[in-house]
């Protein structure tokens, strides 16, 4: 009978039917799902490239694919994972779906622009896929000149255009979020009552808006240089290749915070909900997101310590890099403190949160090694760097994304995922992950350079371990794909608030009605007020 009730109630899913109702939707929730489908596709595409990379590196010789193919594999892997998966991941799916709900709004400020953002990502993706099918691109995701402008004979222009277009998608999402947070909050939803996920996405949006345009113009200049030979970065005409690196990293360092900040926001939600406690030091955690966003713009030169940049600039960038570490440290410590005397549940999302905190800590702390001038001259462009960023991006951001997806799945679909299966997959991913990437730290310090198709024999054992781990990891990632789809039909029906969480999104039905709330909510309590929630349930 419950089932029937659910089926009859109008939700955003059954408010209208047909392909057109999805492709022309202005509902942020549906757009969130469109994004979800898109980035899942790109994740597995990027994952297939990763699988091939790992298989090639199983042996020291280049025996699976040719050198050129290998170079295309890691380039496409990096480009797809970064620009078409991780950057849109949390903001465009979970953020899109939940940010308006969490502040009690009916939608984002500009729903049509929101839909446009999705189309831009898809169009950008099509350019990327065209480049891939036409013959690939082999510059590395960093597109350093003069290799990319003059020497590579692959599809640099198409890829560059794809990223350029996807960049506008990112800019528009950020713009939409900023305006929404400023202008669309429900009555009573003051800044310091906002859930930390909203703060994190707001900070992310600042970076998207301020940083992405610089990437856009950099790509435009690169494309002009490559196709019209205008010489902007050409040393033969007095141009400076390091100028390109400055422009690229001015965006791409802050971009790493586009990738991780929303994850930090998700973890704040999870830690609070599954320990039934408000986040310890709420204001510190909230401001630390903004601090990371701002300080993140002052450190880009730490990617260029040995590039021929002036040593004094290197000094300044190293110094400032350490400032970003502090707000990150603040978050980790406050989450840990939140657990103290909590009521800690081991539900799958919380397992992901635990995994995140540990792996982000390792990834972040190894970032301090890289920011250290004396050590970076040795480990720059080795597998140490590869391990560092996979720890943060896969161990951190991706774990947070999966945690968030499990957490909000019942809200999005009205169904629970199978808990046991989910726990197994979380564990598999955790173990597989460490087996894949921990050996890479050792490899890196030994001196194994990145982007190497072949390598000296003595590195093989560690590479074999890494490849073994990657197979475990692949299994771990395929499991959620299966059970999430399964749950759409067979999952247990979820109530409006299966976790006992406090956010406004849990105060409406699962799945929510098209307009989110039957009436505009009025907020009277702080975020994460579990006592008030209990009182309301009792009363």
């Amino acid at each position, binding site marked *: 009978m419950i089932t029937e009730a659910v089926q009859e109630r109008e939700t955003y899913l059954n408010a209208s039917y047909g392909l057109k109702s999805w492709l022309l939707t202005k509902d942020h929730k549906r757009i969130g799902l469109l994004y979800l489908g898109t980035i899942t596709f790109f994740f597995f595409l990027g994952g297939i490239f990763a699988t091939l990379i790992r298989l090639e590196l199983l042996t020291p010789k280049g025996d699976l694919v040719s050198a050129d193919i290998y170079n295309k594999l890691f380039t496409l892997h990096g480009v797809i994972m970064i620009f078409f998966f991780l950057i849109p991941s949390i903001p465009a799916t979970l953020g899109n779906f939940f940010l308006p709900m969490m502040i009690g709004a009916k939608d984002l*400020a500009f729903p049509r622009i929101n839909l446009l953002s999705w189309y831009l990502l898809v169009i950008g993706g099509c350019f990327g896929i065209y480049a891939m099918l036409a013959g690939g691109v082999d510059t590395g995701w960093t597109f350093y000149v003069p290799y990319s402008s003059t020497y590579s004979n692959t599809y640099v222009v198409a890829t560059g255009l794809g990223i350029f277009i996807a960049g506008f998608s990112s800019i528009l999402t950020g713009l939409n979020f900023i305006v929404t947070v400023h202008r*669309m909050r429900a009555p009573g939803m003051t800044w310091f009552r906002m859930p930390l996920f909203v703060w994190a996405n707001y900070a992310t949006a600042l970076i998207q808006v301020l*940083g*992405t*345009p610089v990437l856009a*113009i950099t790509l435009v200049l690169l494309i002009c240089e490559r196709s*019209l030979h205008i*010489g902007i970065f050409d040393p033969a005409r*007095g141009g400076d290749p390091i100028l390109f690196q400055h*422009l690229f990293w001015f965006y791409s360092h802050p971009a790493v915070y586009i990738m991780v900040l929303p994850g930090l926001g998700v973890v704040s939600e999870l830690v609070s909900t599954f320990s039934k406690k408000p986040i310890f030091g709420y204001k510190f955690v909230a401001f630390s997101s903004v601090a990371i966003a701002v300080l993140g713009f002052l450190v880009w030169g730490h990617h260029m310590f040995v590039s021929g940049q002036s040593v004094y600039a290197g000094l300044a960038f190293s110094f400032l890099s350490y400032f970003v570490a502090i707000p990150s440290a603040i978050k980790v410590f406050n989450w840990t403190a939140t657990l103290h005397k909590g009521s800690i549940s081991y539900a799958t999302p919380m397992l992901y949160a635990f995994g995140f905190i540990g792996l982000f800590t390792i990834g972040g702390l190894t970032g301090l090694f890289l920011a250290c001038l004396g050590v970076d001259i040795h480990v720059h462009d080795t597998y140490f760097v590869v391990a560092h960023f996979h720890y943060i991006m896969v161990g951190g951001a991706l774990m947070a994304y999966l945690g968030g997806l499990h957490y909000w799945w019942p809200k999005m679909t009205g169904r629970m995922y199978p808990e046991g299966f989910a726990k197994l997959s979380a564990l598999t991913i955790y173990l597989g992950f460490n087996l894949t990437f921990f050996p890479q730290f050792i490899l890196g310090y030994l001196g194994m350079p990145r982007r190497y198709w072949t390598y000296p024999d003595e590195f093989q054992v560690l590479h074999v371990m890494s490849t073994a781990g990657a197979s475990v990891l692949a299994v771990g990632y395929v499991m959620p794909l299966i059970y999430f789809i399964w749950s759409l039909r067979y999952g247990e029906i979820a109530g409006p608030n299966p976790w006992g969480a406090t956010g406004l999104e849990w105060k409406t039905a699962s799945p929510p009605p098209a307009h989110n709330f039957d009436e505009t909510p009025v907020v009277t309590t702080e975020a994460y007020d579990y006592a008030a929630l209990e009182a309301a349930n009792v009363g």
Partner: protein
Amino acid sequence: MLASHTETLALREQFETPAQQKEASSLGMWIFLVTEVMFFSGMFLAYTVYRAAFSQVFSVASNTLNVVIGAVNTSVLICSSFTMVLAVHAAQIGSRKLLILFLILTMLLGGVFLGVKAYEWNQKFEEHHVPGPTFHLDGTTQQGQAQLFFSLYFAMTGVHALHMVVGVGILLTLLIQAFAGRYTAEYNTPIDIAGLYWHFVDIVWIFLFPLLYLIGRHHH
């Protein structure tokens, strides 16, 4: 009848009040303009770096540009900003006629600017000042560095002109809607916002003019 129609058009469902909507729109536009600033910033950086390194050659190259044409074109653009602000004013006081008039004037002035720009570009082709194998600039042996100046010249004025073209397109849309009586003293946000964009493009030129045409008239 018409009024109530525009009323419903005016307030989109995600907003509670028209004021909220108007504020959201102009905030959105300002943020968009910030992204535009950052977009141009990459070229300004490249310009600064290379001008500092090759100031002598840049000065020789800059001297080949026609200051009079540049100054006149700057004035044309300023006039267009003036007519644009008058268009916004006309919309605010609800004068459809004036609105249409000033929109048309603004577009015309924009068109004049683009026309002059096209003429200048064409000159560059004739004078072999376009980077590439046929490039040649008299008065310096540093042909490579001179090409950098013209690369930046084309990139900066080109991206700027592209923005102008987009601006004219936007104004055209507004004009059609203004003919249809869409804008009233109560609802004219799109005019306002388009105005912001147009003025921004003007400001970019206000910087491009001295950087490309004026600085380095005197070099030792």
